[in-house]
């Protein structure tokens, strides 16, 4: 093996700037998508538990549909197919701003929310039904009971699976390079084509994904340990 490793090429000057800007975009697209995916996922889970038939059907179709189609297809769909879906003024606005980023966020949000909804639903189901009864018996509405009694307990239980969903989202965000979102992998690929340092560029990208994942996972686990002591059945 006589490959001449040149890490300093990748990790200096303009290329370093590219990598840093790629990391920034990766973090942004993941964070924004995670935020919306959590909101929509929670909403879907609660809707499904209301036992109101139209809600139940809607959420069941939503989760099955988006969990069981490839993410790349969904990304292409939102990017290339949104012409037929959105009204003109919304499209114009998106084209003027960062359309790639928006399409990526929508695809990642919708896809991830389907998984998160299932995690949250199983979390809610693991809380004894008597908790809901006790809070309703004190006069809390269904929404208040969910907000103050059921969800806080459910979230503590499902923190580990939610971490893995968040990390999947982070890794899945790399697929957005295919529609031109200038995230980390996109930048690494660009460095590779300019410098022909494929091994170094991809190694750096890999290590950065790995470190972000480990940091996120470690932080949330520590945070969770602090809270877990109060919940036990």
């Amino acid at each position: 093996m006589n490959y001449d490793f040149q890490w300093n090429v990748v990790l200096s000057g303009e290329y370093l700037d590219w990598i840093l800007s790629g990391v920034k975009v990766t973090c942004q697209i993941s964070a924004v998508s995670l935020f919306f995916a959590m909101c929509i996922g929670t909403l879907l889970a609660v809707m499904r538990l209301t036992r109101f038939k139209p809600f139940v059907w809607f959420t069941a179709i939503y989760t099955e549909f988006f969990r069981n189609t490839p993410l790349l297809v969904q990304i292409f769909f939102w990017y290339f197919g949104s012409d037929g879906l959105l009204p003109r003024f919304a499209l114009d606005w998106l084209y003027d701003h960062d359309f790639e980023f928006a399409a990526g966020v929508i695809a990642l949000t919708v896809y991830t929310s389907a998984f998160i909804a299932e995690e949250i639903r199983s979390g809610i189901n693991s809380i004894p039904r008597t908790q809901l009864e006790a809070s309703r018996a004190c006069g809390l509405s269904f929404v208040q009971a969910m907000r103050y009694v059921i969800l806080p307990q459910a979230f503590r239980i499902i923190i580990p699976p939610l971490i893995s969903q968040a990390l999947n989202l982070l890794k899945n965000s790399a697929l957005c390079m295919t529609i031109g979102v200038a995230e980390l992998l996109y930048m690494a690929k660009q460095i590779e084509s300019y410098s022909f340092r494929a091994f170094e560029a991809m190694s750096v990208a890999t290590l950065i994904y790995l470190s972000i994942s480990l940091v996120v996972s470690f932080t949330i686990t520590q945070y969770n340990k602090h809270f877990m002591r109060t919940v036990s059945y």
Partner: protein
Amino acid sequence: MAMIEIKDIHKWYGDFHVLKNVNESIEKGEVLVICGPSGSGKSTFIRCINRLEEIQKGEILLEGRNIYDKGVDVNELRTEVGMVFQQFNLYPHLTVLQNVTLAPIKVRKMPKSQAESIAMELLARVGIHDQAKKFPVELSGGQQQRVAIARALAMKPKVMLFDEPTSALDPEMINEVLNAMKDLARDGMTMLCVTHEMGFAREVADRVIFMDGGAIVEEGTPEHFFTNPQHERTKAFLKEIL
């Protein structure tokens, strides 16, 4: 006007007729003990009074107002009817104090400081004010049940429902809960208690009703109930538990 008026109520679970033509009238300040074998519908009966269960026929009037009327706000109704469960059902993620203040703050929109001072008074009344900062898992069963009583009282209900409040407790903890209930009865609270604590029934109940198969089989003063029951089914039941 009676505090609670129950007229010809019926309830079915599918084909199973759980409550059959139950009639009852409870005066303000009255303590009613409901006993009977398991599956006799006694828990279902009291759960209909705060609409944790819905009846299919008949009506229940709380201070003359039909609680099944369309215009009735269920959440508001429940603030007037406190409930204590067999399994305590405290919120495990909140401290004792937060358990008691949650509903006053969120439902009654009471300022936190006011809710907390009321909660501390109630906790003192049931003898656990020194545990206010602890979490439910750190308390014994008897203490948890007393917190549950304080939690229900925090909404200043007009009626209290007790669904076998001592059945899940170790024997040595039963009295502390019963004493809290006796205090409440002496203070004039209207109470409906599903319980097998016959000592409690004898001491504080104004009336005892015996249910079997979803219907009221026998009813009367504790005196009548324990010394001179008329119905065979009641006699058999009393023989089992006394």
